[in-house]
């Protein structure tokens, strides 16, 4: 079931000729100095249009996707990507719109962005929103940079420490370092909440801020969040909210109300813009009033009935420009359309049904004999099942379960994150899945458990029905093969 690499279809002189302009490079050649000209054409594949279409269509068929499979990846929010969002974001006028088109001819587009800013402010309880960061991690970068700018503007130059719970997503400490900060990690308690005593021990005059997700990466709500906010604010630090888990509380709780000063939203998670095989996402940022001057540019402003761009001239203390143009504009339009489709009641239902589905799935898995990492807690929109007992008693790991699930037509949940919980599966069903799909997942897990007990090899050597099985990562890293070369 393998598909050759496209270069293997290449034949000299072949190509989608009808797609090329009729004239060649003659005019250019005479203008370009000899020493700057390319001597040999680039070795791109020479294939016909039908060969191209077939090849990439077949490649697509090798993928799992939300459109084809249940994809309960914890902390990724793999909900249905509504087709309407794509269709209307790709109207020809939007596709043909140049980023530097004059405001006079951009009012329709700017209206969509402005309203998106306003809606995001409303759902998060923030005073200002900027849309240009192009991914969650990019939004995090903007957030921590704004926190640093805030302290610097007040002459508070010693504040360069960012506190991060040990359960945090890897982007959090990586972001802190990118902003020139030092990372201080604090432990999490047995029930999943941040250790307040440890926090008190670590805050001080050097604290720039703390980065938190709520519900946390452990799938549970940070019950002491108001106390955490108080401790950090008292010490002069600010609170940053990693919005990866916003789906759990959409329409039910707002980060601004919890005391957060600054946050990013993952539009490709909560607001259902496509994951696209790894991107493009969008990491809009929101801020409380004291951070408004530092928002990254450009933003969209409104004067009466007219919309306009707000740039460095309007925000002289901005942390600056993070993208060449307006970030992932097409992704922003998709998020706008999605939010208009949801409306205020729809958003609340998202939080409610994401939580209902997670709690139902957790309960059914527990009844089927699986161990929850935090059995005494409510699930948020996701929860953790730990397979450390299976690893110890049967020598079957979480990774083995994940691979075997593929044979059942189910994409595995997130494995090995958070690092704190051994042999974990972080499971997030999302609100767009039906009860039958959840029941089928429980059935598959139960089946695999039985297999693990009676014929473990079936699980430890899974998957059996995929195009490849257990790729050699070590070989991939030792014998680097990163670009195709013809054999011989």
């Amino acid at each position, binding site marked *: 079931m393998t598909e050759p690499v496209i270069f293997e279809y290449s034949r000299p002189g072949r190509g989608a000729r009808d797609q090329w302009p009729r004239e060649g490079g003659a005019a250019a050649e005479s203008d370009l100095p000899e020493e700057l000209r390319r001597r040999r054409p680039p070795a791109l594949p020479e294939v016909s249009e039908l060969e191209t279409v077939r090849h990439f269509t077949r490649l697509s068929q090798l993928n799992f996707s939300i459109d084809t499979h249940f994809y309960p990846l914890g902390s990724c929010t793999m909900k249905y990507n509504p087709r309407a969002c794509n269709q209307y974001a790709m109207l020809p006028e939007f596709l043909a719109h140049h980023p530097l088109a004059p405001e006079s001819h951009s009012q329709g587009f700017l209206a969509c962005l402005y309203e998106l800013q306003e809606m995001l402010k409303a759902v998060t309880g923030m005073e200002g929103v900027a849309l240009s960061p192009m991914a969650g991690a990019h939004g995090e970068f903007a957030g921590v940079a704004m926190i640093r700018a805030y302290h610097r503007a007040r002459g508070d130059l010693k504040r360069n420490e960012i506190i991060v719970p040990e359960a945090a997503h890897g982007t959090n400490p990586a972001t802190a370092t990118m902003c020139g900060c030092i990372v201080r990690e604090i432990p999490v308690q047995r029930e999943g909440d941040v250790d307040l005593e440890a926090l008190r021990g670590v805050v001080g005059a050097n604290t720039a801020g703390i980065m938190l997700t709520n519900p946390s990466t452990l799938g549970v709500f940070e019950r002491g969040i108001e106390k955490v906010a108080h401790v950090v604010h008292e010490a002069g630090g600010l609170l940053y909210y990693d919005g990866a888990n916003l789906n759990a509380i959409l329409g039910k709780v707002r980060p601004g109300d919890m005391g957060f000063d600054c946050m990013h939203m993952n539009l490709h998670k909560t607001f259902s813009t496509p994951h696209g095989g790894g991107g493009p996402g969008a990491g809009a940022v929101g801020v409380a009033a004291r951070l408004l001057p530092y928002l990254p540019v450009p933003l969209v402003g409104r004067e009466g009935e007219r919309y306009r761009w707000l740039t460095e001239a309007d925000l002289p203390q901005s942390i600056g420009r993070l993208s060449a143009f307006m970030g992932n504009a097409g992704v922003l339009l998709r998020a706008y359309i999605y939010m208009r489709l949801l409306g205020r009641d729809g958003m609340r239902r998202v939080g409610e049904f994401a939580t209902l589905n997670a709690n139902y799935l957790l309960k059914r898995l527990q009844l089927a004999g699986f161990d929850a990492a935090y059995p005494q807690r409510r699930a948020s929109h996701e929860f953790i099942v730990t397979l450390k007992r299976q690893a110890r008693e049967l020598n079957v790991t979480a990774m083995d379960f994940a691979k075997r699930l593929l044979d059942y037509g189910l994409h595995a949940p997130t494995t090995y994150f958070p690092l704190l919980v051994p042999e974990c599966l972080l499971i997030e069903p999302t609100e767009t899945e039906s009860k039958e799909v959840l029941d089928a997942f429980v059935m598959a897990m139960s089946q695999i458990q039985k297999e693990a007990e009676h014929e473990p090899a079936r699980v430890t050597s899974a998957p059996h029905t995929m195009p490849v099985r257990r790729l050699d990562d*070590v070989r*991939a*890293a*030792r014998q680097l093969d990163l670009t195709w070369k013809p054999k011989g």
Partner: protein
Amino acid sequence: MSNVPPDLRYTKAHEWVRSLPDGTVEVGITDHAQHALGDLVFVEVPETGRRLKAGEQCAVVESVKAASDVYAPLAGEVTAGNPKLAQEPETVNAAPYGDGWLMRLKPAPGAIASAALLSAADYQKVLDAEGS
């Protein structure tokens, strides 16, 4: 149970130190460390001639699941980095105390004494406390 040769000295950061007859020392990572990392895919050793302070980051060992910094167990000057590891990083897994040595250092005066290296027995206690 990992291997802890009695004739070597150790650090809490899972490095070993062997005194060589010519007065230099040889440094590597312990069996416990190589096992925790898994199959190594890449090792970076410091250049010859580089002067290191005790505790300074001087090498990197990378597997598919982790990349770890290695710190100088004592102050000194690098007399050699193991040339084999660029092509065969797996040597560290196969022979962490033998062919998988990372570097050799000429210790600065008094460096060995002030490094407060652990004996094999004390290092074993460190491992026991970590629950391995």
